């Protein structure tokens, strides 16, 4: 059984935010502006988290850290959902059932990474964009919670293709939009359960760390520290 995960190499990341944009386009996230951001109404399944890097200069260097949903192995959001609208599947992906969610926002408050988003209003796209939505990803109605799905629809497409050709899924066939878009290869997506995969090697690098590791949430998004 695969265990999907991601590594993000902060040494390679230039904070260009191509991953943020790719995610927006791939997952039908409605465009938002600075006003929405100030009110906490923006949708960024992949978000840039500001933090202070280790700096030799007089002041610590401000850095950005790309943060998708971390797809915790012990997800605090799944535990608290009263209706089972969020779940962890056998391959470790934490998913959201938009048609079952009642919008109580308990998962959004329970997530220590604030990686979950709520549809405050019916999402709207300006005219040319509205006709260019990704048909593989459902558009969410108002009042439900959404989040990064590790581009789960891409896994389904890759599986369908493999099944049509009567062969197993090949490594690298399933990847996320953010990993594909990253110009420096900082984001690597793959199967953590396969010891020969690139991501497994990176995940066991001595630079590897997890966000808020001491909370015991066991994220499957693993960061690689700068400096090597």
């Amino acid at each position: 059984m695969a265990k999907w995960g991601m590594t993000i190499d902060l040494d390679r990341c230039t904070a260009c935010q191509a991953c943020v944009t790719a995610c927006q386009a791939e997952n039908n996230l409605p465009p938002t502006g600075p006003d929405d951001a100030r009110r906490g109404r923006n949708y960024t399944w992949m978000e840039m988290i500001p933090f202070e890097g280790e700096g030799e200069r007089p002041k610590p260097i401000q850095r950005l850290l790309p943060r998708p949903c971390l797809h915790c192995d012990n997800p605090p959001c799944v535990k608290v959902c009263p209706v089972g609208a969020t779940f962890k599947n056998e391959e470790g992906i934490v998913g959201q059932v938009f048609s079952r969610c009642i919008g109580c926002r308990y998962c959004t408050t329970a997530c220590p990474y604030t990686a979950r988003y709520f549809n405050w209003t019916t999402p709207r796209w300006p005219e040319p964009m509205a006709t260019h939505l990704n048909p593989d990803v459902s558009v969410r109605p108002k009042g439900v919670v959404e989040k990064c799905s590790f581009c789960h629809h891409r896994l389904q497409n890759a599986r369908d293709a493999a099944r049509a050709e009567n062969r197993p899924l090949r490594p690298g066939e399933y990847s996320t939009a953010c990993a594909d878009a990253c110009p420096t290869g900082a984001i690597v997506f793959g199967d953590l359960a396969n010891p020969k995969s690139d991501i497994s090697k990176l995940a066991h690098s001595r630079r590897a760390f997890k966000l808020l590791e001491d909370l015991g949430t066991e994220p499957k998004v693993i960061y690689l520290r700068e400096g090597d």
Partner: protein
Amino acid sequence: MKHDTTPALTSPLIEDAILLEPILRTGPKFYFTVAVLLAIIALGVFAYLTQFREGLGVTGLGRPVYWGIYITNFVFFIGISHAGTLISAILRIVGAEWRRTITRSAEVITVMVILFGVGNILIDLGRPDRMLNVIKFGRLQSPLLWDVCSITVYLTMSTVYLYLPLIPDIAILRDRTQKRRWLYRTLALGWTGTPRQHRVLEILIGIMAIIVIPVAVSVHTVVSFVFAMTIQPMWHSAIFGPYFVVGAIFSGIAALICAMALIRWVYGLGEYLKNIHFNNLGLLLLVMCFAWFYFTASEFLTTFYGNEPAHMGIFWMKFTGPFAPHFWTMVTTCFVIPVAILCNKRTRTIAGTVIASISVNIGMYLERFIIVVPSLSQPRLPHAESVVYHPTWVEWSILAGCFAAFTLLYVLFTKLFPIVSIWEVQEGRERSIAEVTERLKSYIPEPSSGHQVARQPAVGVGT
């Protein structure tokens, strides 16, 4: 039905006729009050319809402050609900005779206010049309499901517990009034006041009073668990269960004092709700003041001493940061003002206890607000934009609408049923004085023989 000829019911009613006044007579003041309340409710309904149409975007909520006024209301209203059933049950069990005129008004608060506690959770839902998913797909591992179960049981039991002692009074109404006879005849369940009926009723009330206490405690415990079970800073605390229960009883007593003062003033029931009732409840409020302070101090000292960065971020937000006005107003209104008023026998009057109670209720609303909002305002991961939560007119209107609707239901209850238990007052007059004298005698050793009995164990301990 022989009720029309029951002689026992006619005589005491001359004494307690004033208790039936609100039901028999309705003046212009009543219609004015109802009109004002309906206007406020209409505003709340309009606000909710706006929210229903547009989505929760019309509130001030956002990421990361996902919960705000509605969840605060939920905790506050469920807290107020502890006024009734719990206090009434405890007073009944310990046989506090002064309870007789106040238990009814307390129990009504519980039943009415729970509706608004539950209502605010439904208002807070992004998809209220899917609320039955909680039953269809309910997962017991979610603390919200614990709330659903616990509050449903509590509402059912509180309603039964309100209804049981109401039966003899409904029978009085059935026999004495011409109004709504079908309603009173149905609800009186054929009560004729026979000794056997009284015995059964007392047993049932006794059983309900006992089992309703653990249920009431469980309700506010699981309300706190909604927060405490998450790992968010200053929510994930083992003290939250008892802290919320204490806070609930605290604000509950305060709400009861306010309601009693209003009833006393509007219906002229000074003979029934006397200084002594306000004095006793005031003392109870004072005790809860100290209990509340103890829990608050424990909570904040533990956080401060532990000095964990994520927790301290929230701590300073409350102590000196953007929530400092809320926090220090809370400390003043929940502790400084009520203690100053209630410690002094000269200020522990009706006016004094009412001022203290209003102060406590303002403080307890703020307490719930600064439990819910600050922990969400500063999440563990830093944010590019810091989001400040400002409730909008929709949230304030719905809050006002909830208060008005609660008041309206309470007022309507007083127009349908006696707000002071007539038969319990009668019983107190007829039976309790003798009973209490007997009970008192049983506490005190007999002058001659009791003296020797009392000395024997003392000798035993010495040797």
